[in-house]
């Protein structure tokens, strides 16, 4: 047990495969594509299946995969806890902020039509906007949950 607690890395041994390993190499190659797909799902969500939630999950998974490969310390060096916390708030804020914006522009809360001169375009903008917000929030919350779950210390 003492050996395990001394280890600074918080992912169990054997999970940290690193870039030397075949699996590590392949998975590292995969990450950008997962992220790209996540962005696609978010952007596509307005008109087809998908949306902010699913896309956000994919974005979150890409970071989680990175942490699984290289450990939590490396993960934090890419995306610090602090940035992640800000992202959690920012995602929800975009959603709520668009609602407040529509009020300021003379509509009801979340009445996207008023966002642009053409109500149809306004609806597009509004939905894409909140999808982006949801995506950011979901991704950041997933990463937070994962990081908190695998953390060793009980600070």
């Amino acid at each position: 047990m003492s050996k395990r607690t001394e280890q600074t890395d918080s992912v169990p041994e054997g999970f940290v495969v690193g870039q030397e390993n075949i699996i590590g190499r392949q998975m590292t190659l995969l990450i950008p594509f997962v992220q790209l797909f996540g962005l696609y799902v978010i952007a596509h969500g307005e008109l087809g299946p998908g949306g902010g939630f699913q896309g956000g999950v994919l974005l979150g998974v890409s970071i989680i995969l990175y942490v699984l490969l290289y450990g939590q310390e490396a993960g934090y060096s890419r995306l610090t806890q602090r940035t992640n916390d800000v992202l959690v708030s920012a995602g929800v804020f975009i959603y709520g902020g668009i609602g407040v914006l529509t009020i300021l522009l003379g509509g009801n809360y979340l009445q996207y039509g008023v966002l642009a001169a053409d109500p149809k375009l306004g609806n597009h903008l509004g939905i894409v906007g909140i999808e982006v917000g949801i995506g950011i929030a979901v991704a950041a919350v997933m990463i937070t949950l994962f990081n908190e779950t695998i953390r060793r210390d009980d600070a």
Partner: protein
Amino acid sequence: MIKHLPVLVIAIPLLAAIIIPIAGRINRVLSWYIATAVTFICFIISLSLLQTVLNEGRISYWMGGWEPPFGIEYVVDHLTVFVLIIVSFMAFMGTVYAKKSIDNEIGPHRTPIFYAIYLLFVTGLMGIVMTGDIFNIYVFLEITSIAGYTLIAVGKKRQSLVAGFNYLIMGTIGATFILLGIGYLYLMTGTLNIADLANRLPELYQTSAVITAFAILAIGLSIKVALFPVHIWLPNSYTFAPSVISAVMAATATKVGAYAMYRILFTVFTPAFFASLGFQVAHVLLVMAVIAILAGSILAVSQKDIKKMLAYSSVGQIGYIVLGVSLMTVTGLMGSMLHLLNHAVMKGSLFLAVGAVVYRYGITSIEGLRGMGKKMPVTMAAFTIAALSMIGVPLTVGFVSKWYLAVASIKVGMWYLIPVIMISSLLTAVYFWRVIDNIWFKAAEGEEHGHGHAVSTGTKAVEAPLSMLVPTLTVAVLCIVFGVLAFAPASLAEQAAMILLK
């Protein structure tokens, strides 16, 4: 902007809740300022909504401009503002009080997150009250419950974690029942808008799915309001939560649960539905309420810890609220609603006063309060006012609601409820007298045999800090204000009751 107040009262605390953790990174005290400002704004908005409702009647706000029943509707009527004001006022008092108390109880480094969760909790409560969509009620119920579990678990003692976890299990079971009930209703009617549901349900009253939905919803709501046999999450939660959370939760969370009960019993379903059933729902509720009143009081008598005593006393008081519901008359509902307000201010000030003792001395045992009247005279005066109120002394709020409940039970010919109310009041007097006796009439530990010199040093008044004293006193004074000027809340409650029983 006035037109948008119904949604802003939800949106402002929600957005503030996510800004606070970031602001807290800049400066921890900033998070408290934001939380206080926001809860104060919510209180002002509630007052403004009260004025609008009194002048113009029911307000309906269409989310996203979608016409109900297709879109989500926020509804403000007399009942809504009545509960909304209780929630926002107690939330505001809670934030003012929290500044010193929370720093002491959970450590300064966690305060920004605390205020963020606190505002989410308040958002959820106000959302349940405002929304006219039954599924939205469930969503807000989850927001407020999940925030509530966390707020209980941050308490200083180890037991707070267990208490929070128990509440999580019970709360989730309750929420699941409510969701299932809503699912059945949606299945049968295809609508989630409460007003629309009320229109569509009457022709389906005889179907087993609707009857099942009602039974399931009733169970879920009973868990959420902590009606006697399913109250088990409540005592430990209130006992081990931080003081301010005990006060705010006791004053708001179960009250909003009762609000949801009113809405579902009387707006979604109607007395006509109860009449169409094979058995008397009112009688079942009545029996449960009487058991809750007596059991809560008896359990409270046997407690040694003051917070636990207050918590069990809450179980009894919830019985009164349900008793008023079970009478199903305007006067009964008025009594129930007045008790909602009255119990909020009484239990609020009791918990706040106890929190001040915890802050100064860290004592929660009733024995430990000996001689506290000399050490903290103002706080203990507030406690005594609220305790007298709980007993139901005339000119205090406790008397008003018990009076209405008694009158209502005589009106429907249930005179045998009067002894129940009397016995419970006597038991309340018994358990509060123990505390008052310790506070005012017993010398503090080690002082009873001391000489004059020792007494003069030992009984120096160490009052709670002003930021804790002011909310405690304000709420305690309200116990008398609403006791003397009872007509103001009573007329509002009467209109609310008439809307429910229309």
